[in-house]
């Protein structure tokens, strides 16, 4: 195994524990960070990936799912998803839901049907920590995806190659690992994969059952066969591993690390949980160069801030801010999802973050004040105390705790993950 994928030795210190929960979730209250400090990296990774025996909050959220789904309100659905991220104990399940939403980026702007969008996001929550081939198969038959990539118009004799293209480019292989011919032929294999009464429907009469050659294999290939062929490529493991590494570990992982994790992933049958357990225990994950190397997404920033400050803000109050910050759930910018990293930050999104932080801190209550509040909440948010210069600038006479916390959230360091 690649040296950097071997488990990090020792036990977690505060900074490492805070790092783990910011990445394998949206950040944790101080008590959880402190409890995790007793664990080894392998034990901590297992806890983060497998979650608690029972997630009571998730059960409560499930109990209102039918109402949310039937609400006909995009804001209600978004609020429900954000509330899950803020409150569910099995944080990684929610984080992976968001990861797959970005991976299979489908937008309500084109799909329009809210129920379909809800059902698609459920796939990410329900299958997101399982085996990738199962998720891929489900997404390929998902009505929202079929509409999003125009597969409804993909018919024998007049193929629409959109799904075939994105399947290879964005879902499994990455650009450069297939040919234009592969796309056209794959498109033919998915002819007749349509929707009927809101459900997947295979229209045999519109399916092109003829011979095709995809990724070097020739035969009367069907859609299922094309998925298998894509998954059999080394490029697929590498591509998915690269995306996981860039989302969870570091902005520019080495090609060797991508290939090594990709090989592990392919070897374990694309078992997402097993891959994540390996990754979250690894030396690469805990490397000093990996810590605070990522830029928080707007959801990571807002949801994480409420969790780490242990304050309660109604998700609905913040929905408008997410548009301005550049991350609207169920409406990613395009098929490629959110590019992330430094692209999250520009003048506009920075100010939107500062204003969202202002909103978060308006209802913030605490007995602490002044320099004490600055140090205490600084540590909760950053995993360590803010530097002396920042403390001096933040704590000035007459400035209340709400405004101290607002300034802490406006520290550039609070936007690093």
């Amino acid at each position, binding site marked *: 195994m690649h040296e950097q994928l071997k488990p990090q030795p020792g036990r977690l210190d505060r900074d490492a524990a805070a790092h783990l929960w910011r990445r394998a979730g949206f950040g944790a209250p101080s008590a959880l960070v402190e409890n995790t400090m007793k664990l080894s990296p392998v034990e901590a990774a297992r806890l983060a990936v497998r979650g608690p025996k029972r997630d009571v909050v998730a059960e409560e959220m499930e109990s209102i799912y039918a109402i949310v789904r039937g609400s006909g309100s995009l804001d209600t659905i978004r609020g429900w998803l954000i509330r899950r991220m803020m409150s569910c104990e099995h944080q990684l399940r929610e984080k992976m839901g968001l990861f797959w939403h970005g991976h299979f980026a489908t937008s309500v702007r084109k799909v329009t049907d809210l129920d379909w969008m809800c059902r698609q996001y459920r796939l990410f929550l329900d299958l997101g920590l399982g085996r990738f081939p199962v998720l891929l198969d489900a997404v390929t038959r998902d009505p929202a995806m079929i509409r999003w990539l125009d597969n409804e118009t993909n018919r024998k004799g007049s193929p629409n190659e959109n799904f075939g293209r994105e399947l290879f480019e964005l879902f499994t292989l990455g650009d450069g690992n297939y040919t234009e011919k592969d796309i056209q032929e794959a498109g033919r294999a998915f002819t007749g994969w349509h929707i009927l009464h809101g459900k997947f429907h295979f229209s045999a009469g519109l399916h092109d059952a003829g011979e095709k050659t995809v990724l070097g294999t020739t035969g009367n290939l069907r859609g299922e066969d094309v998925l298998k062929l894509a998954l059999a490529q080394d490029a697929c493991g590498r591509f998915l591993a690269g995306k996981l590494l860039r989302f969870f570990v570091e902005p520019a992982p080495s090609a060797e690390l991508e290939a090594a994790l990709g090989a592990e992933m392919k070897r374990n049958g694309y078992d997402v949980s097993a891959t994540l357990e390996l990754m979250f225990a690894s030396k690469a994950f805990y490397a000093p160069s990996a810590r605070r190397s990522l830029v928080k997404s707007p959801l990571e920033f807002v949801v994480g801030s409420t969790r780490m400050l242990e304050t309660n803000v109604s998700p609905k109050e913040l929905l408008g801010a997410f548009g301005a910050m*550049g991350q609207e759930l169920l409406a990613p910018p395009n098929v490629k999802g959110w590019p992330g990293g430094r692209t999250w930050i520009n003048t506009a999104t920075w100010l939107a973050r500062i204003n969202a932080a202002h909103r978060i801190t308006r209802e913030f209550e605490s007995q602490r004040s002044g320099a004490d509040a600055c140090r205490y909440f600084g540590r909760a948010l950053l995993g360590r105390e803010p530097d002396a210069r920042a403390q001096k600038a933040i704590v000035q006479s007459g400035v209340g705790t709400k405004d101290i916390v607002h300034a802490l959230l406006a520290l550039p360091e609070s936007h690093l993950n």
Partner: protein
Amino acid sequence: MDIDRRTLLKAGLVLPMAATIPSLFARAAWAAEPGDRVLVLLQLEGGNDGLNTIVPVGHDAYHRLRPGLRIAEDQVIDLKDGVGLAPSLAGLRPLWDDGALAVVQGVGYPEPNRSHFTSTDIWHSASLDPSRRNTGWIGRMLDEESRGDGAVPGLQLDPGPLSLALVGEKTVVPSVRDARDFKVRGGDNAVARLEAAAGDAKGTDTLGFLRESARQAYSLSDSLERALDADRGRAGYPGSPLAQRLWQIARMVESGLPTRIYAVKLSGFDTHSLQKDAHAQLLRFLGDAVGAFYADLKKHGLDKRVLLVSYSEFGRRAKENRSLGTDHGAAAPVLVAGGAIRGGLHGAHPSLDDLQAGDLKHHTDFRQVYATILDRWLRADSESILGAKFKGVPFV
């Protein structure tokens, strides 16, 4: 900034102004030099159907290829030489009559890539080499001329992520959805406190990047608010988001902001099915917005300072598909607007009888358009920015 200060700055003898004095005063250093030329990039996202934008007139092949989507000849706005504007682009008619509209036909690049993302990246990076697509052509230009005076070099007006065209190695180009959304909650005092807490330490790492972005955000916020204070000239614009953004750009140019590059986008051009009405509507947004923008600039004597260029990642297949739409294609026209350009048709319409894998062939490389803009409009060095010398197109 005066020359002495610039020289000292370069020699490392003084700090950048914004690092030493509050942003409110730094703004004084932003005064635009009179005659500074402005470039507006207008991206048509999704692959605009060039064939139904600049429509062939008197070609049987067009009607054969487009039985369902063709635009009748008596409807097009004749531009002579066998082409016409789609009727929904009527808003551009006054520009054409003024010689302020140039149509560069048959623009593309060798071995066209039909992925939206890859082709957009090719256009924005101006690189056919996949390993050299980390920066954009405008970002590299801004890197080269980096003025280091705290001025905002370029501005994207769009809710989406920053266009790769504007990404540089050193330059941070901000992006706003609406220039008036820029107001920091918490009062003036809050801004000073937040700015001080953020710190001014420089650095190329992610933290340094965040600090620089924060600093820019706070200082730009105030000046934009002033430029857009009144509704001046707004009545002449349609209500579309594109038109409203162009109105804001006109006001920012008028107010003397030294920003030379603006980028806007019109999305929805990926018309795989039932294209006709949807495409006409998009062109109407485009033509009416650019028409209003030009009229506004002209009225205020600014039209000769601004060049707008609209482009798309690719055109669409010549033959319509069976969903009454069109699939991803290759060559397409680039439209250039401005009071100081050489209007008219540049280059012939690509032949409909000599297609390449069903697509129109390009005869003008998109980097020739860029070279023209860089060398003759922005007075930059296209050879170093594009990595090669490209022959210009005489629209400037």
